[in-house]
Structure formats: structure tokens, C-alpha cells
């Protein structure tokens, strides 16, 4: 389930080479080269509006860059044919920053959607798996609700359950704990950490939450003004004496 063969195991989970993405004249991602390793959790940090979400869209082929190449799970995202790209995406899960829950479907049906439509799982198994996932994110009671009748934090947790439904080998989390209370945040962190170590999956997590990053990250990168300011093992990043890194990690106005 995790890795197809040894060769693909050696390629990075996500590899960006000299990628530039512009919105209008402004380069939101500016000549970024970055390699995210498999089988670990990589946290991307950075102030609001520096292009973190854009980076994830580029890695999944939802956005096309003006320059550079993107390889995800060994597939050339912008060289691939449409069906190859769709096949690649079935190996990934994504938690969108604004959740992107299906508004016309109940919580249960949202989480069941990838199981039913992508994996064509039999209905008793769907029921078992969805109950398990909702339990995991702490929402076992809310299966029948529509998303617009949930709180922001509850919605986030439903989106999290949906992103994990197919047990994908690569999961991208865009701010999984923003808008959650400290206790729920901590339990989501624990969930991410446990799942990652148990299944050896590749997680990429965007977060503003330094504390949570300290718990879940194996590697960490700091994005500033569309560039990777620093990237490496968490310990190295945390020990960096670079003034802008320190300012960010210590939450000082920089």
C-alpha cells in the first residue's frame, strides 16, 4: 500500500525544481527548489500570504507554474497525461485550508465519498470505515449533519477524516489545526503523529502553530516571500540562529 517498488521509494515524495508561479506581476512562488522526503512528516511554516497553499496546489497539479518542474511520488506532474495525473492524485489525500466539504452531502457521505466513488468499497465496509474515521477525529455523533450546520472546527475535522479515508501514501494538510481549541489541536497533532509512525506515510503539513510543528515535524521549512528561507531536519531549523527564523519561531514581530 505504501510504496510501489524500491526505485520509487528512493525518489522524493515531492520535488520542485526552480518553480515559479506568478499571479499578475507578482511571483508568489519564486524560483523554489525543494525536495520533500518520503516516510516522514514535513512541516512548512511561514507568514500569511507567502505562498504556502500555492505550493501545495503546484505539487498536486491544481495550479500550473510559469517555470520549473514538479515531480510528485515520482510522476512528472506537468508532463503527465490527464489520466496519469488523476491516477497519481488517488495516491494522495488533501485537507484544503477552507475544507472544501461537499455542501450538499452529509458529514457521513462526505467522508464516504472517496470510498464509494474512488475505491468502490462495499457499503457495509464503507459504514465501518467512516464510523472509524469519525471516531478518530472525535465526531462520532454528527454523521447526519450537513456541513453548513457545523462549527468551523468540526468542519475541519470532517475534512481531515475525508482526506485520510483512502489511507493515501502522501497526505497534504493545509493548516489542520487552525481554528481549533488547544485540546482538539493537540489531539489532531497526536493523530497525525500516530498515523504517520504507525503506517509510515508521507505527511506534508502547513501550519502557523509552532508548538504543533515541534510535535509532529521530522523536517521543517520556512517560506518567506515566496522563497524557501531555510529547510532541513526539525532540530536544525529549531536551532538556527538566523534572525528571521528566530523571529518567526519566537513569534516576535519581525
Amino acid at each position, binding site marked *: 500500500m505504501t510504496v510501489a517498488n524500491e526505485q520509487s521509494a528512493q525518489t522524493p515524495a515531492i520535488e520542485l525544481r526552480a518553480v515559479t508561479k506568478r499571479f499578475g506581476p507578482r511571483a508568489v512562488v519564486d524560483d523554489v527548489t525543494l525536495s520533500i522526503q518520503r516516510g516522514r512528516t514535513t512541516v512548512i511554516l511561514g507568514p500569511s500570504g507567502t505562498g504556502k497553499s500555492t505550493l501545495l496546489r503546484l505539487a*498536486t497539479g*491544481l495550479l500550473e507554474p510559469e517555470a520549473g518542474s514538479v515531480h510528485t511520488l515520482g510522476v512528472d506532474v506537468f508532463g503527465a497525461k490527464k489520466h496519469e495525473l*488523476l*491516477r*497519481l*492524485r*488517488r495516491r*494522495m*489525500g*488533501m485537507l*484544503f485550508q*477552507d475544507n*472544501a*466539504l*461537499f*455542501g450538499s452531502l452529509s458529514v457521513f457521505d462526505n467522508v464516504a*465519498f*472517496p470510498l464509494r*466513488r*474512488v475505491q468502490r468499497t462495499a457499503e457495509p465496509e464503507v459504514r465501518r470505515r467512516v464510523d472509524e474515521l469519525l471516531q478518530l477525529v472525535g465526531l462520532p455523533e454528527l454523521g447526519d449533519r450537513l456541513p453548513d450546520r457545523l462549527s468551523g472546527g468540526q468542519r475541519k475535522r470532517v475534512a481531515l477524516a475525508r482526506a485520510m479515508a*483512502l489511507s493515501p501514501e502522501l497526505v497534504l494538510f493545509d493548516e489542520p489545526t487552525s481554528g481549533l481549541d488547544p485540546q482538539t489541536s493537540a489531539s489532531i497533532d497526536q493523530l497525525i503523529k500516530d498515523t504517520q509512525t504507525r503506517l509510515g506515510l508521507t505527511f506534508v503539513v502547513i501550519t502557523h502553530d509552532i508548538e504543533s510543528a515541534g510535535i509532529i515535524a521530522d523536517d521543517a521549512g520556512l517560506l518567506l516571500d515566496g522563497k524557501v528561507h531555510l529547510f532541513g531536519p526539525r532540530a536544525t531549523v529549531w536551532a538556527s540562529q538566523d534572525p528571521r527564523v528566530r523571529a518567526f519561531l519566537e513569534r516576535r514581530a519581525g
Partner: protein
Amino acid sequence: MIPQVLLPLMLPAFALRATAAILRGPPLKDTVLLVSRVILRSLPVVVIICFFCGAMLTVQAAASLAPFGALRMSGLIVGFGGVREVFPLLAGGALASRTGAEIASQLQAMRVTRQVEALEMMGLDPLVLLVAPRLIACVVAGPVCVFAAMVSGLVGGQVIGQFQLGIDRSAMWATLLSAVGVGDLVVGLIKGVVLGFVVGVVACYEGSIVAEGGARGVGAAANRAVVRGMVLVCLSCLGLSALIYGRFL
């Protein structure tokens, strides 16, 4: 944003891709639900508009024919002009304003809330999952609406003929129906399929393209779907009539 001048190029390209998506197996249950929903929501509008239109056409016909002592022939106008031209056109207009607006705003809302990207991230194709079922629904609803439009238009004519003009019931029906042949019914149903397709393609296109973001984009998409849908409905109605009835000139 896509400039307006490119529309004549973009729309046929989208129509081709949407039609191809129909062949790639859209979800059956969604499609059936959408077909019934589109028909149920459009039919009342169609029936009301065409009932009144049939009645009005009859009044005008009677007013112009009465001086010649041909009051009893009033039904012919509704039979010819109404059934062949006006009722199908109105059915298309009702479909565009009711269903076209709904489809465009629904799809555009899914796009701005990134539900479409969520589908794409599951390795699913929104064209097959969202667009194809809606296009099928419109193509099926088109002829149903046109047929209902014809019937309710004729009933409108009959009602005014019987109650205001005092033409007796069976005579009124006889003149109404004497103008309508099986051929007209077939042409009407063909028009219905074409109108449904046109309305569906325009609505799905406006719902799928990247326009202004947010709630304003959703409203604008619905608006464009109605306006452009109506214009194309008129053009296709004229085109089909010229092609089919124009041959007998």
C-alpha cells in the same frame, strides 16, 4: 478571466468535451435525480407561461379574424404559430432561466468553495461527475418541456376560445388541432433536444470557467447563463425553423 470575444471558440470546445464526458459513464443515481429535478422545477414555469401565451395569441387572432366573420378560425393561429414557434421558444427560455441559472450558480459555487478541486484531488473528473449528469438532465428535460409547452398553450387557447369568445368546445379543439400535425410534434421534440443541449452546455460552461471569485462570481455566472442561454435558444429556434419549415417555401 476569459475575454468575451473568445466565447464562439470556447463554447463549442467545451460542448465537445462535455459530450465526450457523457460517454465516459456519469454516475447513474445523480443523473436520474437531476433529470427529475430539472423537469419538476422547469415544468411549472413552462406550463404557466405557455398557458397565458396561448390564450393571448387566441385573443389577438380572434380580434383580427372577427371582422371577416372568421372567428371560428382563431384556433389556427395558435395551432400554427404557437405550436411550431412560440411555445418551443418559451420552453427554451423557461429552461434557461430556471435550470440554466441554477446549474451555473451551483457549479460556480462548488468551484469557489474548492469542492471541484476536492473532486480533482480524489482523481475524479468533474466533467464526468458534475457536468455530464447536468447536460443529460437538460437534454432530457428539453423535449418534455417543449411538449408540455405545446399542450398548455393549446389549452390556454381552448379556454379563452370557449369562455370569452364563446366558440363551442369541440369546434375550438378541432380548429386548434387541425393546424397541428404529427410532423410538428416531431419537430418540436427535436427542438426540445437542441434547446436542452444548448441551455445545458451554456450553463455548465458558465459554471465551470474561472470568473470573479466569491459570491459575486456565483451571481454573475447565473446571470450570464440566462442571458447567453436565451440568446442561443432564440438562434437555435430560428435556425431549426428556417431549416425545417423554410424548405416548404
